[in-house]
């Protein structure tokens, strides 16, 4: 039987990957995926503990998390789509206008290449066409 610690370490791994991704990447979609990853890490924790204690509450709660995550992803993707339409970019650092008045915006001078790389992430290709790396925006 696989010990509980194994599950817990996988869950921690998932959560940490998600956390690091969320804090370092700049692509909104990636950020969103990272959040989902953290969520699944927590869900795995629930299931593991539930199994360990012979108690279904944790599994039921996991189902709840799935439902909430599904709703949340629908809303979040809609927001991302709208943000993209406005800014023509998926870079999160473009959206800082809710800061206190008078503060300078956080700029990404050092992570320039990261941004480029993020922007160069493969977009969904048209069917049958090999995904190429487009560098220009839009």
């Amino acid at each position: 039987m696989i010990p509980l610690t194994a599950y817990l370490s996988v869950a921690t791994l998932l959560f940490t990957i998600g956390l690091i991704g969320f804090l370092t990447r700049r692509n909104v979609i990636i950020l969103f995926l990272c959040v989902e990853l953290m969520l699944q890490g927590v869900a795995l924790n629930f299931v593991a503990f539930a199994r360990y204690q012979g108690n279904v509450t944790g599994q039921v709660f996991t189902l709840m998390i799935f439902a909430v995550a599904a709703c949340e992803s629908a809303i979040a993707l809609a927001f991302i789509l709208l943000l993209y339409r406005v800014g023509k970019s998926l870079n999160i650092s473009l959206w800082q206008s809710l800061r206190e008045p008078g503060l300078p915006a956080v700029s990404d001078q050092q992570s320039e290449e990261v941004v480029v790389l993020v922007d160069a992430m493969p977009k969904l290709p048209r069917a049958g066409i090999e995904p190429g790396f487009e560098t220009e925006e839009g």
Partner: protein
Amino acid sequence: MSPDVLSHFLWIIPALNLLACLSIASLYRVLRSSAHWFTIATVAASAVLSTLLLIHLYGEQNEAKPLVYSLGSWLQIGSLTISLNLQVDPLTAAMLFTINFVGTWIAVFSAAYMDKDPGFARYFAIMSLFIFCMCGLVLTTNLVILFVFWEGVGVCSYLLIGYWIYKRSAAGAALKAFLVTRLGDAGFILGILLIWFSFGATFEYTELFTKVSQERAQLVRDARPTIPVNTDADMSESDVAQTRLNSFDTNLFIICLLLLCGAFGKSAQFPFHVWLPEAMEGPTPVSALIHAATMVTAGVYLIARLTPLFVLSQTALLVVACIGAFTALLAALIALTQTDLKRILAYSTVSQLGYMFLALGAMDSKLGSLAVGAALFHLMTHAFFKALLFLSAGSIMHSTANIIDIRSLGGLRRAMPITHIAFLVGALCLAGIIPFSGFWSKDNILELVLERADHDQTKFAYIYYLLFGSAVVTAGLTALYIARAYFLTFWGQSRLPHEVSEHVHESSLWMVVPLVVLSLGATFAGLFGSYLDVFNEQFNTLWQVPHASPTHEIPHAPNYSLIISTTLISIVAILVAYFMFGRNQDALTADEQTQPGVLQEFSYHGFYIDAVYAALIVLPLTIISKTTRVIEQTFNGIVNILVQLPKVISSILQVRALHNGFIQFYGVSMLLGTTIFIVFMLMMLRMI
């Protein structure tokens, strides 16, 4: 034409008008300045169809059966069924004819009057909607549907009074009209609910009348012991029945009173009359259509329609008669000193509606159909001559660049001969001079009230004599104020500003033709109606209820001494007006400079009824709302201080820079915060 074909007219007439409204509304951008063709065409077609219905119902010597057309049912909940039946009986046919015929000519007049107005198409769309609502109101056989159309008419009235929305006074007047009539309608809907509560879900007229009269007859039978009473037990039983009859009558009286609220609100009777003079802020053809000829008659129609209900409650009828006569007198007194021509006409409308209510109030089980006939006859003739008077006023306004103050008019009979004749005809009708229509219908009402007083056996007889006296006085006052308006407007020298008086001209053909047609109608309608005597015979069809059926015991012979005396009173009043205002107007204008008397002031300000309402209703509400505003602002201030608190703290601690709007920074903060929290908790646990 066969009744089968005719019964289809019942839905075609409202449908045509609704069609015009919808097509103008949907083609608003395209139509612009040709929208009037839709309205004129549909109303004219409706007028033709209504005339055919009228001929069918009045033409046959034997009593024609009412035409019925069923559109299914509107709603069905449990035992409550609201059907969409349409029905035309003589009462409805007369109303339909009046609405559509007068409406047609007013639509034609409006086409010229509203020309070049930016809202031209909107005007005609609302006008069609109004005529649709009015047709629906008179066609339905159901109190609930009647209420729906009743409100529809109110909304159209609101839209048309406030047609020039950018005028503050017009917007205020529209709101006032809406709120005041709504106040009455609140009573109306309570009345409908009380009917539901007392008699079950019977909103169909005939069903309701039958049920009420049967229940009452049963109670009357119980209350009257058939065998000689010997024992105490029988005595108490009949006493109980008597008590039940009394409570039934009280209930019926309350129902009638609540329904009356609605009627008084719509028909601008005291104490709801204040909205009608203000409603003159709308375009003049609107005043002619809504606030003279058709909409305000809805209240009269309601009572006429519910005759079998009202006749069971003599107290309610006494209220109707008293309020009617009082309003007639009050409005005539106010009209005496008004200086705005349209306001004079508005108050005269209120006054004439008072006459109609007086006629309805004078009904009892014997005079029932005579009373409805007299009220409806006056309603029709009034629709003709009041529309005529208003359209003449509109023609004057169109020509004098909206100057309507009779102190600044004068001498218009040379510049506007046709308008002059039209106004004169209308004025003679209103004053009740033989052979113009107003004479016949007003005389009919006076005779009726006198007859009612004569054969009344109860202690109320003297009240009806009083009401008759007040009606005669009102007739004299009516002649006086309309003659004053006429002489000041059309006689003497022009008092218009120089730059306006040069341009005064007779109106275009579009405006003159309706004036001529309505003049002819106003002149001959009375003669025609009186000659045929149709209005007295045909209303027996209203009495399909067994227990309320009237017996025609009273021979209806003309009362010549009454005719001669009222005519004399009117002529004397006109002569007085001529010597005061017609002959020497220069002296009059000089006289205007002097201080007006107390009575004159009272009359000019409408007996300060508006001021009383302002003090009793508006002022307390204003005080309450101002107080609550102060309270609300106090709380708001406290909350605002609390809102400032975080700002102050943050500026003290210099943490504003943390709020940089960068999501990932927040993520890091959260992570750090949570970590610190967890570490702290662990340390706490370790310590414990």
